[in-house]
Protein backbone atom coordinates (compact mmCIF):
# COMPACT_ATOMS: atom_id res chain seq x y z
CA UNK A 1 0.00 0.00 0.00
CA UNK A 2 3.02 2.23 -0.02
CA UNK A 3 2.02 4.14 3.07
CA UNK A 4 -1.59 5.06 2.32
CA UNK A 5 -4.87 3.24 2.41
CA UNK A 6 -7.72 3.18 -0.09
CA UNK A 7 -9.83 5.68 1.81
CA UNK A 8 -6.94 8.13 1.88
CA UNK A 9 -6.40 7.62 -1.83
CA UNK A 10 -10.06 8.20 -2.66
CA UNK A 11 -10.21 11.36 -0.57
CA UNK A 12 -7.04 12.76 -2.15
CA UNK A 13 -8.25 11.98 -5.68
CA UNK A 14 -11.61 13.64 -5.01
CA UNK A 15 -10.00 16.71 -3.48
CA UNK A 16 -8.10 17.46 -6.68
CA UNK A 17 -11.32 18.02 -8.63
CA UNK A 18 -12.47 20.86 -6.40
CA UNK A 19 -10.94 23.94 -7.93
CA UNK A 20 -10.38 27.22 -6.18
CA UNK A 21 -13.36 29.54 -6.17
CA UNK A 22 -15.85 26.71 -6.63
CA UNK A 23 -18.84 25.93 -4.42
CA UNK A 24 -19.57 22.48 -3.06
CA UNK A 25 -22.35 21.00 -0.95
CA UNK A 26 -21.03 18.06 1.05
CA UNK A 27 -22.29 15.55 3.54
CA UNK A 28 -20.41 13.96 6.39
CA UNK A 29 -17.56 11.50 5.93
CA UNK A 30 -15.26 11.17 2.94
CA UNK A 31 -16.78 14.01 0.86
CA UNK A 32 -16.36 16.44 3.72
CA UNK A 33 -12.79 15.24 4.21
CA UNK A 34 -12.11 15.73 0.48
CA UNK A 35 -13.49 19.27 0.56
CA UNK A 36 -11.51 20.14 3.69
CA UNK A 37 -8.36 18.70 2.14
CA UNK A 38 -8.91 20.61 -1.10
CA UNK A 39 -9.40 23.80 0.84
CA UNK A 40 -6.23 23.34 2.82
CA UNK A 41 -3.97 22.21 -0.03
CA UNK A 42 -5.25 23.48 -3.36
CA UNK A 43 -8.28 25.71 -3.11
CA UNK A 44 -8.32 28.11 -0.19
CA UNK A 45 -11.31 29.78 -1.81
CA UNK A 46 -13.35 26.60 -2.06
CA UNK A 47 -16.73 27.36 -0.56
CA UNK A 48 -18.08 24.49 1.52
CA UNK A 49 -21.78 24.27 2.31
CA UNK A 50 -24.07 21.83 4.09
CA UNK A 51 -27.67 21.21 3.10
CA UNK A 52 -29.12 22.07 6.52
CA UNK A 53 -27.86 25.65 6.19
CA UNK A 54 -24.18 25.89 7.11
CA UNK A 55 -22.20 28.15 4.75
CA UNK A 56 -18.43 28.57 4.64
CA UNK A 57 -17.48 27.32 8.12
CA UNK A 58 -13.91 27.20 9.40
CA UNK A 59 -14.41 23.50 10.10
CA UNK A 60 -12.66 22.66 13.37
CA UNK A 61 -13.26 18.93 12.91
CA UNK A 62 -15.40 16.47 10.98
CA UNK A 63 -19.11 17.10 11.44
CA UNK A 64 -21.15 14.11 12.66
CA UNK A 65 -24.29 15.47 11.02
CA UNK A 66 -24.80 17.82 8.07
CA UNK A 67 -26.79 19.91 10.53
CA UNK A 68 -24.53 19.90 13.57
CA UNK A 69 -22.93 23.03 14.93
CA UNK A 70 -19.57 22.29 13.28
CA UNK A 71 -21.18 22.89 9.88
CA UNK A 72 -21.48 26.59 10.60
CA UNK A 73 -18.68 27.04 13.11
CA UNK A 74 -17.33 30.51 12.38
CA UNK A 75 -19.17 30.30 9.07
CA UNK A 76 -19.92 33.22 6.81
CA UNK A 77 -23.59 32.39 7.32
CA UNK A 78 -25.79 30.03 9.29
CA UNK A 79 -28.78 29.90 6.98
CA UNK A 80 -31.51 27.37 6.26
CA UNK A 81 -32.23 24.36 4.15
CA UNK A 82 -34.29 26.34 1.62
CA UNK A 83 -31.41 28.82 1.34
CA UNK A 84 -28.97 26.08 0.32
CA UNK A 85 -31.37 24.21 -1.93
CA UNK A 86 -32.48 27.40 -3.65
CA UNK A 87 -28.88 28.43 -4.22
CA UNK A 88 -28.42 25.07 -5.95
CA UNK A 89 -31.61 25.60 -7.95
CA UNK A 90 -30.42 29.09 -8.95
CA UNK A 91 -27.31 27.53 -10.49
CA UNK A 92 -24.68 28.73 -8.04
CA UNK A 93 -23.41 25.37 -6.77
CA UNK A 94 -20.71 23.61 -8.78
CA UNK A 95 -20.21 20.31 -7.00
CA UNK A 96 -21.89 17.87 -4.72
CA UNK A 97 -21.07 14.39 -3.46
CA UNK A 98 -23.56 11.58 -3.04
CA UNK A 99 -23.51 8.08 -1.65
CA UNK A 100 -25.88 5.15 -2.04
CA UNK A 101 -26.50 1.45 -1.79
CA UNK A 102 -26.63 0.91 -5.55
CA UNK A 103 -25.50 2.74 -8.66
CA UNK A 104 -26.01 1.89 -12.33
CA UNK A 105 -24.01 2.67 -15.47
CA UNK A 106 -25.76 6.03 -15.90
CA UNK A 107 -24.93 7.09 -12.39
CA UNK A 108 -28.48 6.65 -11.09
CA UNK A 109 -28.34 6.08 -7.36
CA UNK A 110 -30.49 4.07 -4.99
CA UNK A 111 -30.54 5.05 -1.33
CA UNK A 112 -34.19 4.13 -0.71
CA UNK A 113 -34.67 0.37 -0.57
CA UNK A 114 -33.83 -3.13 -1.69
CA UNK A 115 -36.85 -5.03 -2.92
CA UNK A 116 -39.82 -4.44 -5.16
CA UNK A 117 -42.51 -3.03 -2.91
CA UNK A 118 -41.91 0.36 -1.36
CA UNK A 119 -44.64 -0.31 1.19
CA UNK A 120 -42.91 -3.56 2.22
CA UNK A 121 -39.28 -3.42 1.18
CA UNK A 122 -36.75 -6.15 1.81
CA UNK A 123 -34.37 -3.54 3.19
CA UNK A 124 -35.31 0.03 3.90
CA UNK A 125 -32.64 2.72 3.59
CA UNK A 126 -33.01 6.35 4.64
CA UNK A 127 -34.32 7.66 1.30
CA UNK A 128 -33.29 10.70 -0.64
CA UNK A 129 -32.66 13.18 2.12
CA UNK A 130 -31.23 16.01 0.04
CA UNK A 131 -29.55 13.64 -2.43
CA UNK A 132 -32.16 13.82 -5.18
CA UNK A 133 -32.24 17.61 -4.85
CA UNK A 134 -28.48 18.01 -5.03
CA UNK A 135 -28.17 15.51 -7.91
CA UNK A 136 -30.89 17.42 -9.77
CA UNK A 137 -29.61 20.93 -9.20
CA UNK A 138 -25.84 21.06 -8.70
CA UNK A 139 -23.79 21.27 -11.85
CA UNK A 140 -21.59 18.26 -11.17
CA UNK A 141 -22.29 15.27 -8.96
CA UNK A 142 -19.46 13.10 -7.63
CA UNK A 143 -19.38 9.84 -5.70
CA UNK A 144 -16.82 8.32 -3.38
CA UNK A 145 -17.76 4.70 -2.88
CA UNK A 146 -16.44 1.16 -2.53
CA UNK A 147 -16.83 -0.78 -5.77
CA UNK A 148 -18.40 -4.25 -5.85
CA UNK A 149 -21.11 -6.15 -7.69
CA UNK A 150 -23.74 -5.58 -5.02
CA UNK A 151 -23.29 -1.86 -5.39
CA UNK A 152 -22.49 -1.39 -9.10
CA UNK A 153 -25.53 -3.03 -10.63
CA UNK A 154 -27.22 -3.37 -14.01
CA UNK A 155 -30.45 -1.97 -12.62
CA UNK A 156 -30.94 -0.27 -9.30
CA UNK A 157 -33.98 -1.40 -7.29
CA UNK A 158 -35.13 2.21 -6.91
CA UNK A 159 -33.84 5.36 -8.62
CA UNK A 160 -33.62 7.68 -5.64
CA UNK A 161 -31.39 10.32 -7.24
CA UNK A 162 -31.01 10.99 -10.94
CA UNK A 163 -27.84 10.19 -12.81
CA UNK A 164 -28.15 10.37 -16.58
CA UNK A 165 -31.35 8.27 -16.23
CA UNK A 166 -31.51 6.31 -19.52
CA UNK A 167 -28.73 8.09 -21.39
CA UNK A 168 -27.97 11.23 -23.34
CA UNK A 169 -30.71 13.84 -23.26
CA UNK A 170 -32.82 11.91 -20.76
CA UNK A 171 -32.26 14.31 -17.88
CA UNK A 172 -33.32 17.28 -19.97
CA UNK A 173 -36.31 15.42 -21.41
CA UNK A 174 -37.42 14.46 -17.92
CA UNK A 175 -37.32 18.09 -16.84
CA UNK A 176 -34.02 18.44 -15.00
CA UNK A 177 -31.92 21.59 -15.52
CA UNK A 178 -29.69 21.28 -18.61
CA UNK A 179 -25.98 20.80 -18.21
CA UNK A 180 -26.12 18.98 -14.89
CA UNK A 181 -25.30 15.38 -14.05
CA UNK A 182 -22.81 12.88 -12.68
CA UNK A 183 -19.19 13.87 -13.12
CA UNK A 184 -16.81 11.46 -11.41
CA UNK A 185 -17.16 8.23 -9.47
CA UNK A 186 -14.16 7.58 -7.28
CA UNK A 187 -13.89 4.06 -5.88
CA UNK A 188 -11.33 1.89 -4.14
CA UNK A 189 -10.37 0.58 -7.58
CA UNK A 190 -10.48 3.41 -10.09
CA UNK A 191 -11.76 6.80 -11.16
CA UNK A 192 -14.64 6.84 -13.61
CA UNK A 193 -16.19 9.62 -15.63
CA UNK A 194 -19.13 9.54 -18.02
CA UNK A 195 -18.93 9.17 -21.77
CA UNK A 196 -20.04 12.30 -23.64
CA UNK A 197 -22.13 10.42 -26.19
CA UNK A 198 -23.71 7.59 -24.21
CA UNK A 199 -23.54 9.12 -20.72
CA UNK A 200 -22.36 5.72 -19.50
CA UNK A 201 -19.74 5.20 -16.86
CA UNK A 202 -16.22 5.13 -18.27
CA UNK A 203 -13.02 4.17 -16.50
CA UNK A 204 -10.52 7.01 -16.70
CA UNK A 205 -7.74 5.90 -14.38
CA UNK A 206 -6.91 2.77 -12.43
CA UNK A 207 -5.47 2.92 -8.95
CA UNK A 208 -1.90 1.71 -8.39
CA UNK A 209 -1.80 -2.05 -7.94
CA UNK A 210 -5.31 -2.64 -9.29
CA UNK A 211 -5.96 -4.66 -12.44
CA UNK A 212 -8.60 -4.24 -15.11
CA UNK A 213 -9.84 -7.71 -14.16
CA UNK A 214 -10.46 -6.67 -10.59
CA UNK A 215 -12.56 -3.78 -11.83
CA UNK A 216 -14.56 -6.06 -14.14
CA UNK A 217 -15.10 -8.56 -11.33
CA UNK A 218 -16.48 -5.87 -9.12
CA UNK A 219 -18.84 -4.22 -11.60
CA UNK A 220 -22.28 -5.57 -12.43
CA UNK A 221 -22.68 -3.73 -15.71
CA UNK A 222 -20.68 -3.19 -18.88
CA UNK A 223 -18.10 -0.49 -18.37
CA UNK A 224 -16.68 1.82 -20.97
CA UNK A 225 -12.97 2.51 -21.00
CA UNK A 226 -11.28 5.74 -21.90
CA UNK A 227 -8.97 5.70 -24.92
CA UNK A 228 -6.12 6.37 -22.60
CA UNK A 229 -6.79 4.74 -19.26
CA UNK A 230 -4.19 6.24 -16.98
CA UNK A 231 -2.93 5.26 -13.60
CA UNK A 232 -4.40 7.24 -10.70
CA UNK A 233 -1.80 9.52 -9.17
CA UNK A 234 -1.17 8.41 -5.60
CA UNK A 235 -1.51 10.87 -2.74
CA UNK A 236 1.28 13.39 -2.45
CA UNK A 237 3.16 13.70 0.76
CA UNK A 238 1.54 17.05 1.41
CA UNK A 239 -1.94 15.70 0.81
CA UNK A 240 -1.36 12.82 3.20
CA UNK A 241 0.20 15.02 5.83
CA UNK A 242 -2.64 17.54 5.80
CA UNK A 243 -5.27 14.81 5.62
CA UNK A 244 -3.83 12.96 8.59
CA UNK A 245 -2.75 15.87 10.73
CA UNK A 246 -5.35 18.54 10.05
CA UNK A 247 -8.39 17.07 8.34
CA UNK A 248 -8.94 13.81 10.19
CA UNK A 249 -6.47 13.53 13.08
CA UNK A 250 -8.70 11.08 14.95
CA UNK A 251 -8.95 8.88 11.83
CA UNK A 252 -12.76 8.86 11.93
CA UNK A 253 -12.87 8.53 8.16
CA UNK A 254 -9.45 7.40 7.05
CA UNK A 255 -9.43 4.76 9.77
CA UNK A 256 -12.54 3.09 8.34
CA UNK A 257 -10.52 1.16 5.81
Amino acid at each position, binding site marked *: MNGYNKMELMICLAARYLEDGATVVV*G*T*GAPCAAAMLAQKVYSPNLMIMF*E*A*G*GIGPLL*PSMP*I*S*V*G*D*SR*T*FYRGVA*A*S*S*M*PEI*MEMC*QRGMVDYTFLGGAQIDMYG*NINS*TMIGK*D*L*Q*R*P*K*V*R*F*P*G*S*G*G*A*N*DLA*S*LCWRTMMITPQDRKRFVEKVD*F*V*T*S*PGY*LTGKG*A*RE*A*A*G*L*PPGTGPYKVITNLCVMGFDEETKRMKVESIHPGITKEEILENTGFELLWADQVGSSDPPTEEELRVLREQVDPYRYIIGRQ
Partner: protein
Amino acid sequence: MVEEITPAGELFCDPDVDRAREFFRAKPRRMESKVTSVKEAVSRFIHDGDYIGIGGFGANRIPTAILHEIVRQGKKHLGLSGHTATHDCQILAAGECFDRVDVAYVVGLEARGLSKAARRLFEEGKLKVTEWTNATLAWRYKAAAMGVPFLPCRVMFGTDTYKYSAAKEIRCPFTGTKLLAVPALYPDVAIIHVHRADIYGNCQIDGIMVSDSDLARAAKCVIVTTERLIPNEEIRREPTKTAIPYYLVDAVIEVPYGSYPGNMAYEYFSDEEHLKAWLEAENDPDTYKEFVNKYIFSVNSHWEYINLCGGMERLSQLRALELMIPLNANGEA
Protein backbone atom coordinates in the same frame (compact mmCIF):
# COMPACT_ATOMS: atom_id res chain seq x y z
CA MET B 1 -40.67 10.06 -26.05
CA VAL B 2 -41.12 10.65 -22.40
CA GLU B 3 -43.44 8.43 -20.42
CA GLU B 4 -46.24 10.27 -18.67
CA ILE B 5 -46.29 9.29 -15.04
CA THR B 6 -48.95 9.67 -12.39
CA PRO B 7 -47.12 9.44 -9.10
CA ALA B 8 -48.47 6.70 -6.86
CA GLY B 9 -47.83 8.32 -3.50
CA GLU B 10 -50.66 9.20 -1.18
CA LEU B 11 -51.17 12.79 -0.14
CA PHE B 12 -51.59 12.68 3.65
CA CYS B 13 -52.51 16.33 4.23
CA ASP B 14 -55.07 18.56 2.57
CA PRO B 15 -53.32 21.30 0.55
CA ASP B 16 -56.48 23.39 0.18
CA VAL B 17 -55.63 26.99 0.99
CA ASP B 18 -59.18 28.17 1.58
CA ARG B 19 -59.87 25.58 4.24
CA ALA B 20 -56.51 26.49 5.80
CA ARG B 21 -57.45 30.17 5.68
CA GLU B 22 -60.65 29.46 7.57
CA PHE B 23 -58.65 27.58 10.19
CA PHE B 24 -56.11 30.39 10.59
CA ARG B 25 -58.87 32.98 10.66
CA ALA B 26 -60.28 31.30 13.75
CA LYS B 27 -56.95 30.57 15.43
CA PRO B 28 -56.68 32.77 18.55
CA ARG B 29 -53.90 35.32 18.37
CA ARG B 30 -53.93 37.13 21.66
CA MET B 31 -50.56 37.81 23.19
CA GLU B 32 -51.12 35.89 26.40
CA SER B 33 -49.04 33.42 28.34
CA LYS B 34 -48.85 30.00 26.77
CA VAL B 35 -46.50 28.52 29.33
CA THR B 36 -47.43 24.96 30.17
CA SER B 37 -45.86 21.59 30.92
CA VAL B 38 -44.61 18.92 28.57
CA LYS B 39 -47.35 16.57 29.77
CA GLU B 40 -50.09 19.10 29.32
CA ALA B 41 -48.87 20.22 25.90
CA VAL B 42 -48.78 16.68 24.55
CA SER B 43 -52.12 15.65 26.00
CA ARG B 44 -53.85 18.84 24.96
CA PHE B 45 -52.40 19.52 21.51
CA ILE B 46 -51.40 16.14 20.07
CA HIS B 47 -54.18 13.74 19.23
CA ASP B 48 -54.10 10.23 17.85
CA GLY B 49 -54.09 10.52 14.08
CA ASP B 50 -52.55 13.99 13.93
CA TYR B 51 -49.88 14.75 11.34
CA ILE B 52 -46.76 16.18 12.93
CA GLY B 53 -43.69 18.07 11.77
CA ILE B 54 -40.56 18.18 13.92
CA GLY B 55 -38.15 21.10 14.00
CA GLY B 56 -34.37 21.03 13.88
CA PHE B 57 -32.48 18.46 11.90
CA GLY B 58 -32.54 14.85 13.03
CA ALA B 59 -30.37 15.00 16.13
CA ASN B 60 -29.75 18.74 16.14
CA ARG B 61 -32.01 21.14 17.99
CA ILE B 62 -34.76 18.55 18.38
CA PRO B 63 -37.62 18.68 20.91
CA THR B 64 -36.61 15.50 22.74
CA ALA B 65 -38.79 16.05 25.79
CA ILE B 66 -41.96 16.31 23.72
CA LEU B 67 -41.03 13.30 21.62
CA HIS B 68 -40.47 11.14 24.72
CA GLU B 69 -43.77 12.32 26.16
CA ILE B 70 -45.58 11.39 22.93
CA VAL B 71 -44.22 7.88 23.34
CA ARG B 72 -45.09 7.80 27.05
CA GLN B 73 -48.64 8.93 26.46
CA GLY B 74 -48.97 6.22 23.83
CA LYS B 75 -50.05 8.46 20.98
CA LYS B 76 -50.89 6.37 17.91
CA HIS B 77 -51.56 6.64 14.20
CA LEU B 78 -49.61 9.85 13.85
CA GLY B 79 -48.57 11.07 10.43
CA LEU B 80 -44.89 12.00 10.29
CA SER B 81 -43.08 14.46 8.09
CA GLY B 82 -39.76 12.67 7.64
CA HIS B 83 -37.78 15.79 6.87
CA THR B 84 -34.39 14.45 7.86
CA ALA B 85 -35.88 12.55 10.75
CA THR B 86 -33.05 10.69 12.50
CA HIS B 87 -33.07 10.40 16.28
CA ASP B 88 -36.52 11.99 16.36
CA CYS B 89 -37.83 9.26 14.06
CA GLN B 90 -36.02 6.70 16.21
CA ILE B 91 -37.78 7.91 19.36
CA LEU B 92 -41.23 7.84 17.79
CA ALA B 93 -40.48 4.44 16.28
CA ALA B 94 -39.81 3.17 19.81
CA GLY B 95 -43.43 3.95 20.61
CA GLU B 96 -44.70 2.83 17.20
CA CYS B 97 -46.52 6.14 17.27
CA PHE B 98 -46.86 6.76 13.53
CA ASP B 99 -48.50 4.84 10.72
CA ARG B 100 -47.88 7.07 7.69
CA VAL B 101 -44.77 8.94 6.67
CA ASP B 102 -43.76 11.51 4.09
CA VAL B 103 -40.21 10.30 3.67
CA ALA B 104 -37.27 12.48 2.83
CA TYR B 105 -34.84 10.84 5.25
CA VAL B 106 -35.82 8.27 7.88
CA VAL B 107 -34.45 5.30 9.85
CA GLY B 108 -30.85 6.50 9.48
CA LEU B 109 -28.81 8.53 11.93
CA GLU B 110 -26.44 9.93 9.29
CA ALA B 111 -22.85 8.84 9.91
CA ARG B 112 -23.89 6.97 13.07
CA GLY B 113 -25.66 4.13 11.30
CA LEU B 114 -29.21 2.87 10.89
CA SER B 115 -31.92 2.29 13.47
CA LYS B 116 -32.97 -1.34 13.29
CA ALA B 117 -36.16 -0.67 15.21
CA ALA B 118 -37.25 2.10 12.86
CA ARG B 119 -36.34 0.00 9.83
CA ARG B 120 -38.44 -2.85 11.10
CA LEU B 121 -41.55 -0.66 11.02
CA PHE B 122 -40.90 0.27 7.41
CA GLU B 123 -40.02 -3.26 6.36
CA GLU B 124 -42.97 -4.95 8.05
CA GLY B 125 -45.43 -3.07 5.86
CA LYS B 126 -47.19 -1.47 8.79
CA LEU B 127 -46.74 2.05 7.46
CA LYS B 128 -48.03 4.02 4.52
CA VAL B 129 -45.09 5.67 2.84
CA THR B 130 -44.87 8.49 0.30
CA GLU B 131 -41.45 9.53 -0.98
CA TRP B 132 -40.13 13.10 -1.12
CA THR B 133 -36.81 14.86 -0.68
CA ASN B 134 -35.45 17.28 1.88
CA ALA B 135 -35.96 20.22 -0.47
CA THR B 136 -39.46 19.25 -1.57
CA LEU B 137 -40.64 18.77 2.01
CA ALA B 138 -39.06 22.14 2.85
CA TRP B 139 -40.87 23.74 -0.08
CA ARG B 140 -44.13 22.05 0.90
CA TYR B 141 -43.85 23.78 4.28
CA LYS B 142 -43.00 26.99 2.48
CA ALA B 143 -46.04 26.75 0.21
CA ALA B 144 -48.28 26.43 3.27
CA ALA B 145 -46.42 29.25 5.01
CA MET B 146 -46.97 31.44 1.94
CA GLY B 147 -50.64 30.55 1.75
CA VAL B 148 -50.47 28.97 -1.71
CA PRO B 149 -51.53 25.39 -2.52
CA PHE B 150 -48.29 24.47 -4.31
CA LEU B 151 -44.82 25.66 -5.22
CA PRO B 152 -42.90 24.87 -8.40
CA CYS B 153 -39.40 23.40 -8.33
CA ARG B 154 -36.98 21.46 -10.51
CA VAL B 155 -36.11 18.26 -8.69
CA MET B 156 -37.25 14.62 -8.61
CA PHE B 157 -37.81 14.37 -12.36
CA GLY B 158 -37.09 11.02 -13.96
CA THR B 159 -36.69 9.13 -10.68
CA ASP B 160 -38.62 6.59 -8.66
CA THR B 161 -38.66 9.14 -5.87
CA TYR B 162 -41.00 11.06 -8.15
CA LYS B 163 -43.05 7.97 -9.03
CA TYR B 164 -43.74 7.28 -5.36
CA SER B 165 -44.36 10.89 -4.42
CA ALA B 166 -47.60 12.82 -4.70
CA ALA B 167 -46.09 15.62 -6.79
CA LYS B 168 -47.28 16.66 -10.25
CA GLU B 169 -45.61 17.90 -13.40
CA ILE B 170 -46.63 21.31 -14.70
CA ARG B 171 -45.38 23.80 -17.27
CA CYS B 172 -44.33 27.37 -16.58
CA PRO B 173 -46.96 29.65 -18.14
CA PHE B 174 -44.22 32.12 -19.15
CA THR B 175 -41.31 30.01 -20.36
CA GLY B 176 -42.84 26.58 -21.00
CA THR B 177 -40.23 25.08 -18.69
CA LYS B 178 -41.26 21.77 -17.18
CA LEU B 179 -41.60 22.10 -13.42
CA LEU B 180 -42.51 19.93 -10.49
CA ALA B 181 -45.44 21.16 -8.41
CA VAL B 182 -45.28 20.16 -4.75
CA PRO B 183 -48.44 20.53 -2.66
CA ALA B 184 -48.67 22.70 0.44
CA LEU B 185 -48.11 20.75 3.65
CA TYR B 186 -50.01 22.05 6.67
CA PRO B 187 -49.06 19.78 9.60
CA ASP B 188 -51.60 19.54 12.40
CA VAL B 189 -48.82 20.12 14.91
CA ALA B 190 -45.25 21.39 14.72
CA ILE B 191 -42.88 20.72 17.61
CA ILE B 192 -39.84 22.98 17.71
CA HIS B 193 -37.02 23.45 20.20
CA VAL B 194 -35.48 26.93 20.36
CA HIS B 195 -32.78 28.77 22.23
CA ARG B 196 -34.96 31.43 23.80
CA ALA B 197 -38.66 32.23 24.00
CA ASP B 198 -40.87 34.53 26.00
CA ILE B 199 -44.05 33.34 27.69
CA TYR B 200 -46.11 34.39 24.66
CA GLY B 201 -44.11 32.25 22.25
CA ASN B 202 -41.85 34.80 20.57
CA CYS B 203 -38.77 32.71 19.76
CA GLN B 204 -35.10 33.26 18.97
CA ILE B 205 -32.96 30.60 17.31
CA ASP B 206 -29.17 30.76 16.99
CA GLY B 207 -27.42 29.14 14.06
CA ILE B 208 -29.10 27.35 11.18
CA MET B 209 -32.87 27.60 10.90
CA VAL B 210 -33.18 24.39 8.86
CA SER B 211 -36.87 24.67 7.84
CA ASP B 212 -38.34 25.81 11.12
CA SER B 213 -39.27 29.28 9.99
CA ASP B 214 -41.57 27.81 7.36
CA LEU B 215 -42.67 24.85 9.50
CA ALA B 216 -43.89 27.14 12.28
CA ARG B 217 -45.93 29.15 9.77
CA ALA B 218 -47.28 26.08 7.98
CA ALA B 219 -48.48 24.21 11.05
CA LYS B 220 -51.94 24.64 12.50
CA CYS B 221 -50.61 24.25 16.03
CA VAL B 222 -47.09 24.96 17.27
CA ILE B 223 -45.54 23.56 20.45
CA VAL B 224 -42.29 25.23 21.44
CA THR B 225 -39.77 23.99 23.97
CA THR B 226 -37.04 26.43 24.87
CA GLU B 227 -33.65 26.25 26.50
CA ARG B 228 -34.70 29.24 28.53
CA LEU B 229 -37.61 31.59 28.95
CA ILE B 230 -36.68 35.24 28.60
CA PRO B 231 -38.62 38.40 29.37
CA ASN B 232 -40.70 39.90 26.58
CA GLU B 233 -38.47 42.97 26.93
CA GLU B 234 -35.53 40.94 25.61
CA ILE B 235 -37.52 40.00 22.53
CA ARG B 236 -38.47 43.63 21.94
CA ARG B 237 -34.88 44.79 22.42
CA GLU B 238 -33.84 42.98 19.22
CA PRO B 239 -36.96 42.32 17.12
CA THR B 240 -34.70 41.44 14.17
CA LYS B 241 -33.92 38.20 15.99
CA THR B 242 -37.48 36.90 16.31
CA ALA B 243 -37.63 33.76 14.20
CA ILE B 244 -41.09 32.65 15.32
CA PRO B 245 -43.59 35.33 16.44
CA TYR B 246 -45.99 34.55 19.26
CA TYR B 247 -49.20 34.38 17.23
CA LEU B 248 -48.02 31.18 15.59
CA VAL B 249 -47.45 29.45 18.91
CA ASP B 250 -49.88 27.49 21.09
CA ALA B 251 -47.67 26.16 23.90
CA VAL B 252 -44.35 27.19 25.42
CA ILE B 253 -42.37 24.99 27.81
CA GLU B 254 -38.99 25.76 29.30
CA VAL B 255 -36.91 22.61 28.89
CA PRO B 256 -33.24 23.26 29.60
CA TYR B 257 -31.00 20.92 27.61
CA GLY B 258 -34.17 20.09 25.72
CA SER B 259 -32.40 18.81 22.63
CA TYR B 260 -30.29 16.31 24.60
CA PRO B 261 -29.00 13.80 23.46
CA GLY B 262 -29.01 15.95 20.34
CA ASN B 263 -26.75 18.88 19.59
CA MET B 264 -27.81 22.44 20.47
CA ALA B 265 -25.63 24.99 18.71
CA TYR B 266 -23.63 27.21 21.06
CA GLU B 267 -25.02 25.25 24.06
CA TYR B 268 -24.04 21.57 24.07
CA PHE B 269 -22.85 18.94 21.66
CA SER B 270 -24.67 15.69 20.97
CA ASP B 271 -24.08 12.76 23.33
CA GLU B 272 -22.61 10.32 20.86
CA GLU B 273 -22.12 7.65 23.52
CA HIS B 274 -25.78 7.62 24.45
CA LEU B 275 -26.85 7.61 20.80
CA LYS B 276 -24.49 4.71 20.16
CA ALA B 277 -25.87 2.82 23.16
CA TRP B 278 -29.37 3.36 21.75
CA LEU B 279 -28.40 1.97 18.33
CA GLU B 280 -26.70 -1.00 19.97
CA ALA B 281 -29.67 -1.75 22.20
CA GLU B 282 -31.74 -2.15 19.05
CA ASN B 283 -29.71 -5.23 18.10
CA ASP B 284 -31.62 -7.38 20.55
CA PRO B 285 -35.40 -7.15 21.12
CA ASP B 286 -35.22 -7.76 24.87
CA THR B 287 -32.36 -5.37 25.42
CA TYR B 288 -34.20 -2.81 23.32
CA LYS B 289 -37.43 -3.18 25.29
CA GLU B 290 -35.49 -2.76 28.52
CA PHE B 291 -33.64 0.25 27.11
CA VAL B 292 -36.82 2.00 26.04
CA ASN B 293 -38.44 1.19 29.38
CA LYS B 294 -35.50 2.57 31.27
CA TYR B 295 -35.03 5.77 29.30
CA ILE B 296 -38.58 6.64 28.27
CA PHE B 297 -41.40 4.79 30.01
CA SER B 298 -39.93 4.73 33.53
CA VAL B 299 -39.03 8.36 33.38
CA ASN B 300 -41.15 11.29 34.44
CA SER B 301 -39.36 14.29 33.04
CA HIS B 302 -36.52 15.41 30.85
CA TRP B 303 -34.43 16.11 33.95
CA GLU B 304 -34.94 12.54 35.09
CA TYR B 305 -33.82 11.32 31.68
CA ILE B 306 -30.75 13.52 31.83
CA ASN B 307 -29.91 12.29 35.29
CA LEU B 308 -30.08 8.70 34.03
CA CYS B 309 -27.60 9.70 31.34
CA GLY B 310 -24.99 11.24 33.61
CA GLY B 311 -26.74 14.38 34.70
CA MET B 312 -25.12 17.77 34.82
CA GLU B 313 -21.65 16.27 34.91
CA ARG B 314 -22.21 14.77 31.48
CA LEU B 315 -23.85 17.95 30.23
CA SER B 316 -20.85 19.99 31.37
CA GLN B 317 -18.67 17.80 29.21
CA LEU B 318 -21.01 18.19 26.25
CA ARG B 319 -21.02 21.93 26.80
CA ALA B 320 -17.25 22.04 26.77
CA LEU B 321 -17.24 19.87 23.66
CA GLU B 322 -19.65 22.20 21.89
CA LEU B 323 -17.61 25.26 22.80
CA MET B 324 -14.34 23.44 22.20
CA ILE B 325 -13.06 24.31 25.65
CA PRO B 326 -10.58 21.75 26.98
CA LEU B 327 -11.53 20.50 30.45
CA ASN B 328 -8.25 18.80 31.16
CA ALA B 329 -4.59 19.11 30.38
CA ASN B 330 -4.86 16.72 27.44
CA GLY B 331 -7.07 19.21 25.67
CA GLU B 332 -10.13 16.97 25.98
CA ALA B 333 -13.59 18.04 26.88
